[in-house]
């Protein structure tokens, strides 16, 4: 059962007690969220079962296809901004023909998964939190629990699969568009031919750059779905609670994406 008893505390006597309680609750929450992730991951073998495949397909579609528009714009402009900023600087040293490598490597390693993660956290993550939160406060999750339809299997697993699959795919797409955006700026603003740009771009980029980026994207997908479902399933107090769950989802996923992104980079490039 996902439905939890309401926790009611006496007001804390002083600021230390209140800080301590905050820390304990945060640790508890982290543990519960991780257990939810494991619980949903344990359900992934049911991916293609008659009971779940429709929901999995719908989530794949919602996450993958419905996000393409905003991801495209963000990707294109990320590449363009990168190329323009760095290109203008490099031009002072006569190095602007290396802009291809710069854009390509930073897209693959860092900016691709990072920007995709932020866009998906803000769009898909908040939507999941709002939907799960609304269901929780409307007793729909409790109803599922009582019917012994596990919310982890029925609701979270399809979303987990969708994000784990689509985040890396969307990141590949972001990378391509970003590099392409850089090429446009290179050609129109910096006077670098497309041929020279792409030649330079792929000469120094390694496969490792791509894989590390995709691994990050996969992790970001897990982070987003876990935070969103946890916040949704633990929402309380009606519409206010749903708003709070949504806000926290965006904030916590942003922070985790930043921090985890940094440590993954450190792990692979030292």
């Amino acid at each position, binding site marked *: *059962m996902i439905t939890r008893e309401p926790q009611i505390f006496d007001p804390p006597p002083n600021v230390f007690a209140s800080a301590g309680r905050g820390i304990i609750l945060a640790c508890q929450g982290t543990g519960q969220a991780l257990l939810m992730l494991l619980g949903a991951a344990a359900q992934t073998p049911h991916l293609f079962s008659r*009971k779940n495949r429709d929901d999995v397909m719908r989530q794949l579609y919602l996450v993958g296809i419905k996000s393409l528009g905003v991801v495209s714009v963000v990707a294109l402009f990320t590449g363009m901004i990168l190329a323009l900023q760095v290109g203008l600087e490099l031009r002072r040293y006569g190095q602007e023909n290396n802009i291809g490598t710069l854009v390509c490597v930073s897209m693959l390693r860092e900016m691709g998964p990072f920007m995709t993660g932020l866009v998906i956290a803000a769009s898909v993550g908040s939507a999941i939190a709002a939907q799960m939160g609304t269901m929780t406060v409307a*007793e729909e999750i409790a*109803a599922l629990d*009582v*019917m012994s*339809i596990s919310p982890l299997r029925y609701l979270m697993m399809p979303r987990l699969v969708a994000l784990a699959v689509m985040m890396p795919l969307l990141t590949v797409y972001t990378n391509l568009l970003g590099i392409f955006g850089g090429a446009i700026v290179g050609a129109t603003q910096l006077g670098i031919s497309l041929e020279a740009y792409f030649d330079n771009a792929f000469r120094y980029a390694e496969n490792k750059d791509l894989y590390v980026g995709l691994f990050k994207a996969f992790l970001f997908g897990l982070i987003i779905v876990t935070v969103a479902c946890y916040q949704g399933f633990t929402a309380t107090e009606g519409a206010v609670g749903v708003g709070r769950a949504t806000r926290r989802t965006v904030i916590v996923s942003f922070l985790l994406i930043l921090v985890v992104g940094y440590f993954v980079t450190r792990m692979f490039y030292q």
Partner: protein
Amino acid sequence: MIRFENVTKRFGAKTVLDDVSYEIEKGETFVIVGRSGAGKSVSLRHMIRLLTPDAGRIWVDGECISEAGGAELERILGRFGVLFQSAALLQWLNVEDNVCLPLRQKTNLPEDEIRARAAEKLALVGLEGAEQKMPADISGGMRKRVGLARAIVTRPEIILYDEPTSGLDPVISRQIDLLIDDLRRHLGVTSVVVTHDLYSALHIGTRVAMLHEGKFVVCAPPEEFIASRHPVVRDFLQAQGIAGLQDVRKAFGK
């Protein structure tokens, strides 16, 4: 069938259930009445483990649901059908899919069998023709009836109704009351009904219980309940203009 054993439940400083003990017999329609906020929904939620008591135990047919876990809990819950106060339909599924949901997710019945059963239950609650509507597009009373169809589609032995007729027009209300009564008479279903409507309580109930300040102050068959001298019960009866059982029978056209 369902036994509360010295159950106490507090929310913060507020004691909602105060050392409550009672037993609901098999095949009974047990009606809980009481003021708003008396703890009726809280009582129901204890029976299906959405809440656990601070002290005491709850037994379902000799199994302790308040302490069961895993497969045992799932098996006990499988005997229940529940109509929530808010109906609790899934908003992205249409009426038919909502009713089919428990069968699709928890059984391996063939699809046409599932749809046939759903259609049968939807007809029972008077909703044939509304299969394709979305929950957001139907009235509160209709949603409640869809919730009722979903609760009975798995053919449960025990059905819990949280205010099955509030928000329904009087004609449909009486229809639902008759349906609850039918389920008991013909299928031997055990029902627990929470309601504000004393007419329906006294008509369908085999026992009626008044929950007040954490206790069941009166818990008796309808004739005795009406005769009770307890002031809270008298207030309730008076407020709804019931002097004797004949008033109730008249309301049901008998």
